[in-house]
């Protein structure tokens, strides 16, 4: 079995080719030790099976980012993985000159490679003619025109790859030699000159202008319409996440409720039943409920990216966001985190600078996710009088204030983190805005589903284990036979709550609140039900339970303590899934720990201040 690796400039159509060649026989993993995604697939051609690897896009082999280093090391045969027999250099034919530099470098290194002239459909439409024979002679390699999105030319491509794989390998130069080469002062210049020469020889008819992109940009980057459309799109994205994902989340929840009922029916009462219903089923359900948000968000992101809009959104937002300390693309994770921090953190991958990406991931959970809403509305309904203030309802104002505090805090913390974290690579915009292209939905859907699966695989175990732990804490030890209080009040959770009560007293929390906080680490909204349980609210249905709980809160807790609890929920180190996804995305325990520590300190200090001021 031989290995083939795809290389190419960003946006040359590598992923499209990868998808077209491997269809569903592909998987996503990480390159060892780092969080750069590695896509591997397989394909069979005339009884030979090939393994296909999609390498991160690079402009040249002189690298500046982590992703690019992966590609360079691979081409230099430095990678510990299986070496590639043949490289396929994917070239955007409408921008061929830019790829020639990379082609020259790969040739210099001594790797066997094929040039795949992609996007031939667009190139031909725009009148470009390339003398492929001459190009082939220049590089001493096969040159195959293809249209990746339509699957055209793929057979010819594989055939030449196969033939090439059967020829004896050449000597690949060592990294030392390579480093010496590129340090020569005339290296870049001579390469650039060479690309000019080749261009003169092989281009027989030049490209006409891309009027479609031009016209669309006149509109989408327009000083007025452009901004209006951008905000409409961002709002639409948020709505779709918030409202569109809801029915699917409801479906998953109902399914697990149903399974829970089923289990309750067939398994006799006792620990085993509780383990299955409240432990296992709740744990698995708690992982799967994230899928709608994740998949929806990535469907949106990939569609915008494929179409060519994502970079333009970053272009328009960059100035504003940079004043706030983050790059333009950070808008996507920050906005999506208002629905849920999990997909938000995952979407931070679109940020190119690793430090800025990290900071965005660390502060995104401060924004008001939908799991906070049940808690906010409960406390606001119980504590905030329904007055109007300057024409606005007071409850609404408080809710707005909580949202505002979330996002403002995110920016402030980002600013502080920035001064602590060494920025390893220069923070720049510098990016290419690609031409607009028709999005290919089959690829978009596949990639979004892959994101979801990867989340379940990589973060699922951690979430599951932690949620089992929480289950054990609220379940054990058993309440005594003649217990007068709710069972949870005898559990470890209550012991933890009581132990920590003194620490939380300066913010007005008593042990009932601290106990109810324990299970809320699984998911914030659980506070509502766990507080009901701790306070032994008896009711026929949920609605009544909330009413009862509201009344109890009003009677039992002070206004200042409840304000402090609201503030606690802005900053608290939650939830376990956030930790799990931070761990997955950064591939280390350092970041989740840093997140836990800073949010804990912040939550404590802020709710302490709140209580002291208002009591």
């Amino acid at each position: 079995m031989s290995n083939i690796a795809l290389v190419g400039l960003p946006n040359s159509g590598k992923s499209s080719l990868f998808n077209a060649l491997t269809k569903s026989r592909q998987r996503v993993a990480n390159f060892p030790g780092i969080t750069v995604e590695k896509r591997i697939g397989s394909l069979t051609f005339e009884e030979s099976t090939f393994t296909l690897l999609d390498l991160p896009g690079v402009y040249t082999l002189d690298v500046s980012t982590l992703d690019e280093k992966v590609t360079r090391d691979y081409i230099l045969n430095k990678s510990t993985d299986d070496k590639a027999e043949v490289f396929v250099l994917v070239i955007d034919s409408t921008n061929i000159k830019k790829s020639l530099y990379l082609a020259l470098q790969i040739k210099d290194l001594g790797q066997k490679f094929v040039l795949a002239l992609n996007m031939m459909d667009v190139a031909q439409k725009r009148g470009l003619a390339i003398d492929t024979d001459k190009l082939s002679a220049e590089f001493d390699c096969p040159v195959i025109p293809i249209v990746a999105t339509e699957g055209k030319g793929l057979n010819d491509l594989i055939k030449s790859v196969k033939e090439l794989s059967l020829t004896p390998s050449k000597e690949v130069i060592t990294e030392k030699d390579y480093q010496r080469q590129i340090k020569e002062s005339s290296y870049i210049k001579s390469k650039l000159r060479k690309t000019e020469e080749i261009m003169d020889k092989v281009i027989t008819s030049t490209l006409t202008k891309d009027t479609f992109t031009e016209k669309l940009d006149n509109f989408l980057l327009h000083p007025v319409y452009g901004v209006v459309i951008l905000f409409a799109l961002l709002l639409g994205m948020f709505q779709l996440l918030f409202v569109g994902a809801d029915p699917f989340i409801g479906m998953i929840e109902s399914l697990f409720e149903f399974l829970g009922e089923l289990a309750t029916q067939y398994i006799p009462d006792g620990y085993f039943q509780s383990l299955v219903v409240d432990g296992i089923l709740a744990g698995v359900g708690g992982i799967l409920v994230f899928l709608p948000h994740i998949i929806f968000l990535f469907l949106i992101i990939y569609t915008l990216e494929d179409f060519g809009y994502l970079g333009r959104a970053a272009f328009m937002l960059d100035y504003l966001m940079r004043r706030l300390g983050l790059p333009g693309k950070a808008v996507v994770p920050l906005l999506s985190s208002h629905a849920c921090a999990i997909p938000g953190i995952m979407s931070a991958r679109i940020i190119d600078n690793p430090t800025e990406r990290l900071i965005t991931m660390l502060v995104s959970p401060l924004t008001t996710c939908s799991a906070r809403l049940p808690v906010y509305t409960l406390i606001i309904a119980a504590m905030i009088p329904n007055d109007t203030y300057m024409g606005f309802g007071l409850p609404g104002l408080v809710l707005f204030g909580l949202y505002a505090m979330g996002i403002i805090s995110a920016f402030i913390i980002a600013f502080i983190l920035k001064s602590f974290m060494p920025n390893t690579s220069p923070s720049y915009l510098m990016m290419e805005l690609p031409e607009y292209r028709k999005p290919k939905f089959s690829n978009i859907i596949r990639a979004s589903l892959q994101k979801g699966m990867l989340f379940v695989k990589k973060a699922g175990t951690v979430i599951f284990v932690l949620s089992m732990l929480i289950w054990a804490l609220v379940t054990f030890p058993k309440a005594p036979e003649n217990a007068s209080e709710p069972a949870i009040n005898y559990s470890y959770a209550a012991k933890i709550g009581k132990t920590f009560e003194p620490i939380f007293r300066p913010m007005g929390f008593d042990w009932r609140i601290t106990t109810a906080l324990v299970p809320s680490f699984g998911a914030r909204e659980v506070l509502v039900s766990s507080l009901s349980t701790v306070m032994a609210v008896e009711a026929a249905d949920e609605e009544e339970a909330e009413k009862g709980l509201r009344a109890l809160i009003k009677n039992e807790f002070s206004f200042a303590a409840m304000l402090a609890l609201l503030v606690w929920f802005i900053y608290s180190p939650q939830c376990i899934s956030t930790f799990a996804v931070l761990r997955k995305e950064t591939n280390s325990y350092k970041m989740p720990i840093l997140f836990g520590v800073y949010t804990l300190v912040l939550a404590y200090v802020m709710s302490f201040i709140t209580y002291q001021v208002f009591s």
Partner: protein
Amino acid sequence: MDSNYVKLSNSEKGLFYRVVKLNDEKIALRLTQLGFHESSLVMLKRKAPIFKDPLLFQVGESQIALTRKEAETIDVLEVQGEHYHE
């Protein structure tokens, strides 16, 4: 130094300029990769809405976005007689 050099950030929309020098080592490599290298032909195409920053340049067949600060690091020379027609 020739006084005709201007910073790319101060270039006029729709006129062609030739890159003379990249002044910031730290970003020179990436700029080169994106097409801004000595003697390449560039043109300011658009400015971002509202803040007029970042800027969008035509370089070869590509459209490249740079912040004003990044564009400031590039010295260019106006190319007489070449205009861009929409």
